[in-house]
């Protein structure tokens, strides 16, 4: 509710912040999800090690991706950046698996 109110009061600035927010929540998770899948099949380790290492690396990537959505020059840049990295990791997974 409070967010809605603020959004209505500052029509110019706030909606973009919250669009970026949505992108940070779901977009960054998408990147991390693809990255975890790629790492877990690429890493030359026993399954247990590969799984936990991939999960931890994906969390670090997700953090960077979340912050990137806010640092990027425009919303378009943010979407492109996340989309490209998700595609890259998805492709890596596809090749390796």
């Amino acid at each position: 509710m409070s967010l809605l109110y603020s959004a209505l009061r500052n029509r110019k600035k706030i909606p973009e912040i919250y669009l970026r927010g949505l992108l940070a929540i779901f977009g960054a998770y998408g990147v991390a999800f693809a990255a975890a899948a790629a790492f877990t099949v690429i890493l030359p380790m026993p399954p247990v090690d590969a799984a936990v290492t991939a999960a931890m690396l994906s969390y670090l990537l997700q953090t960077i991706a979340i912050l990137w959505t806010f640092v990027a020059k425009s919303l378009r840049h943010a979407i492109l950046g996340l989309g490209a990295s998700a595609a890259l990791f998805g492709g890596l997974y596809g090749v390796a698996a």
Partner: protein
Amino acid sequence: MDIRRPLSRFHSWFGLPLSWMLFFIFATGTLSFYRNEITFWMQPELHQVRQDDQGLDRALAVLETVASGAERWIINLPSERNPAINLAWTNPGGDARRPERKNLDPASGETIEPRATGGGNFFFRLHFELFGLDHATGRMITGFAAMAMFALIVSGIVIHRTLLKEFFTFRPKTNRVLWRDAHNVTAVLALPFHLVITFSGMTLLAPLLMPSAFTPHYSDNIRAFYMESRGFRPAERQKRDQPAAALPNVAAMIDTARSHWRGNDVGSVAIDNPGRVGSIVELKPSHALSIGIPSAGGGLRFDAKSGDMLDESGAASLSVAMAFWNSINSIHLGRFASPLMRFLLFLSGMLGTVMIAAGLISWHIIRAQRRKSGDSVPASHRLVEILNIAFIAGLPLAMIGFFWANRLIPAEIQNRTGMEENIFFLLWGLCFIHAALRRPHVKAWCEQLGIAGLMGLSLPLLNGLTGGAHLGESLPSGLWPVAGFDCLALIIGGGLAAIACFLWKRAKPAVGEGGKPC
């Protein structure tokens, strides 16, 4: 490009809506470091137990009479976290995860039937499953919240590059910077803890939160991952219906284990096929032997008949990845912690809770002071203030109310556990209503904090009056879970009451002149 500006917008706009949930998770999670102690306090029937060195023999004697045909006995020996002996056993055909249980006084061998209570487990469950949701959804939400918190911490570090300098900056004189400084000081003081506890929150939930890392190897059998990563032995089919044999000499095995573990005490004794041929005894240490080993690691198995040590679980050398994984998870669970370490974890959790609260308060105060004096207060700011009151002051009130409910609801009554929980949610709901209706807001703050403080301060008294061991008993006899709980109740209750007085004193002139306090 200066990335601090966009990051600080992220910090305040992303942080705000999440911080209420994070406050809830941190407050309930911090208490969970002491969940065994809390459960013990909440069962005053157990406070009378005393120690002597015959406890193990008495436990075995009780199990022989009540559980002679069982497949497995488990004896949890007295520790500084729980001075009673907990017995558990699985009858043939019973579910091993839901064993029969009894509590035992080590000094008398009498079994004690304590009251039913949610205990410390209530808060433990709340902190990662929330309420009113199915388990998976709740864990998913808290997992995402942990992710967001991790990003918030990193952004906070980048925003405040001059961390060390800010750490020594504390300006209590002005309202605005007081809370901002409090946010920074508590953040920096326990920064490694904040980073590790949020990151390990995610790793503990990883198979659910980031399934893509696991499914390529454990497609539809995530249990196999848990068994492997936690160092469980693959289940061996035990032969049942073996001929009778003498009970093992557990005391001798305990001596062997203690010297094998270089003095670490035995925490629990599990006996498979007790009193039968082919019986096996497994001893587990009271604390994890090192923070890197898996949760099921460190157990020693003995042949019941000969008393020879068979093997040690989880003793295989660990990869770097698993050692790191186990270490951060151990820290989150406080598995290895000695009393001092556990207290430091608790203290760090408290600092994290205060950090989130101070962040929420300063978000509101900064915007309140930017308003010109004639402006009406925007509804959004009012809403933030109301939620701040109901969470920061109301949640502690409801949590302390939960302990009151534990002692005021009669011990024998049906569905006590549910009633305790209902009172917690009822009190918290009332705090929301009170925060929404009471004006000026500072009165709502003071009243809720004041009531929570008084209720906390009187918990030790309530404990003594309702059958528990009061401080005069628990301190001299070294009943640490109870004495520690009462002392912390005094400190936290006193702290809440002091904040209420502080706020009230400062707001008084403004309220008296009929002005508008924040």
